């Protein structure tokens, strides 16, 4: 493994049909980074994330997670999908979904969930404010609550790196702040990569920013300029800042 680089993409290209979604993508993420992936709809953020964890195979280029093929280190990955509703009417309770996170990395068949698993799941559920809802069916929850369940499932896996695809898309402001505080806490030991097109994510939590729009521009120190956002979105975007969000300036992309 290269000196504390946890994720390395080299000249990655990917297309669902003919038009490439990602082209010549190079990205190096150091250990304990807190990276925000920004970009417009269809810019390739979710695709990039899925390539990083080996759910999609790039057409060209290489992906190394912890120096290895992503498929072989999946047990180190915590993933929160964008789709919080994989199977809305499925007969399953909240606690069973979160327990699913504990399958992670265990190979032996017939191995039931043990006391440690149940303890971790209990803690996670409490932390996510879901303990009272644990025996509810997923279909009885609201969108925001379901999103919390998805986050809890990723947390319960106790991974080394988190990949979260718009984890706060349908949760309220209060929970959003709580989540980012928690991620900041976890970030002391773990790497966090968050997809968002919500610029407020850029507030005091993230350490670096990558703009994803077919190409990827990485900004190691979190800076932000109007030009950069326009480049990533291909149209002028008003830089909205809420009162408490510090304004940040990023350097221009190197061509």
């Amino acid at each position, binding site marked *: 493994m290269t000196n504390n680089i946890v994720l390395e993409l080299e000249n990655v290209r990917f297309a669902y049909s003919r038009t490439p979604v990602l082209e010549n993508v190079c990205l190096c993420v150091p250990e304990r980074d807190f990276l925000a992936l920004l970009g417009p709809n269809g810019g390739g953020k979710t695709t990039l994330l899925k390539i990083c964890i080996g759910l999609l195979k790039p057409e060209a280029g290489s992906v190394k997670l912890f120096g290895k093929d992503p498929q072989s280190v999946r047990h180190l990955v915590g993933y929160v999908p964008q789709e919080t509703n994989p199977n809305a009417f499925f007969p*399953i*309770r909240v606690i069973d979904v979160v327990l699913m996170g504990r399958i992670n990395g265990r190979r032996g068949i017939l191995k039931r*969930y043990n006391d440690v698993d149940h303890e971790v799941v209990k803690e996670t559920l409490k932390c996510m404010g879901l303990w009272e809802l644990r025996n509810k069916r997923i279909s009885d929850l609201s969108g925001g609550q379901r999103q919390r369940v998805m986050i809890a499932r990723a947390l319960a896996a106790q991974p080394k790196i988190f990949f979260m695809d718009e984890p706060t898309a349908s949760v309220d402001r209060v929970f959003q702040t709580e989540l980012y505080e928690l991620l900041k806490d976890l970030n002391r030991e773990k790497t966090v990569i968050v997809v968002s097109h919500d610029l407020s994510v850029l507030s005091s939590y993230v350490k670096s920013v990558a703009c994803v729009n077919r190409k990827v521009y990485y900004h190691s120190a979190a800076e932000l300029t109007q030009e950069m956002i326009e480049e990533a979105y291909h149209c002028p975007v008003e830089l909205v800042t809420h009162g408490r969000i510090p304004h940040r300036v990023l350097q221009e992309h190197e061509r």
Partner: protein
Amino acid sequence: MAEFIDISYLKLVVAAAFLASIACGIVGTLVVVNRMVFLAGGIAHAAYGGVGISFYFGLPMFPSVLGIAAVSSGVLGFTGIRVRHRSDAIIGAIWATGMSIGVILINMTPGYHGDVMSYLFGSVITILPSDLLIIGLLDLILILWITIFYREILAVSYDPEFATIAGIHVSTFYYSMLFFCAGTIVVLMRFVGLILVIALLSIPPCMVEPIVPSLGRMFFVCTFLNFCFFIAGLLTSLWFNFQAGPTIILVASGTFILAELVRRISKNYG
């Protein structure tokens, strides 16, 4: 009619119904929660090609039908994974093709084929003690499979993408589900018929899916419901001298419609 039925034979039929209920309860639950009912229908109809092959080439019925069902479920599984967006069209094609092959081959076979219908719509009269053994064996395999791999099956069914990340070989489980589905359809072919078995796979899970808290509970409730439908259907068919397969299905669908009506009315006035 009832007085002609030997009591020991009735016991055999009830035992077969019980064992069939277990297979239908487990496989039906998985088929419904994985939204594979159409796929199961495709397998069942394509399997009729196996009936034709057996007639035309003079091969034993059970292995021919099982072989065709397994091959078609393999092809359907492959298209489901590789070309998901076209899979329903391909299911439709395989559905009709298998059926047509069956019909043509039976046309080409000289002689009288009065019992062909019994493969499509079932014929309880033909149940043999050896059938009991086959259904029992299928149940045993199914129960072992879901007990050992319950967590994996749950994860794959609920969220295949997450299951992949959790290191589960999703396509293996997907194919296993399809093969078990094929197996169940073929085993129940003579009992309720290739076409009618779909109703037993889909009606009970459809009824209980919105109310059960877990997949495990759903297996049990569906098995119980299936057994009730079997018994009520068999008794009704004996009483009115109807064919057993369609009667069982009508009892099931009648109960389904009633339950749905009661649910809607109690929702509106409750």
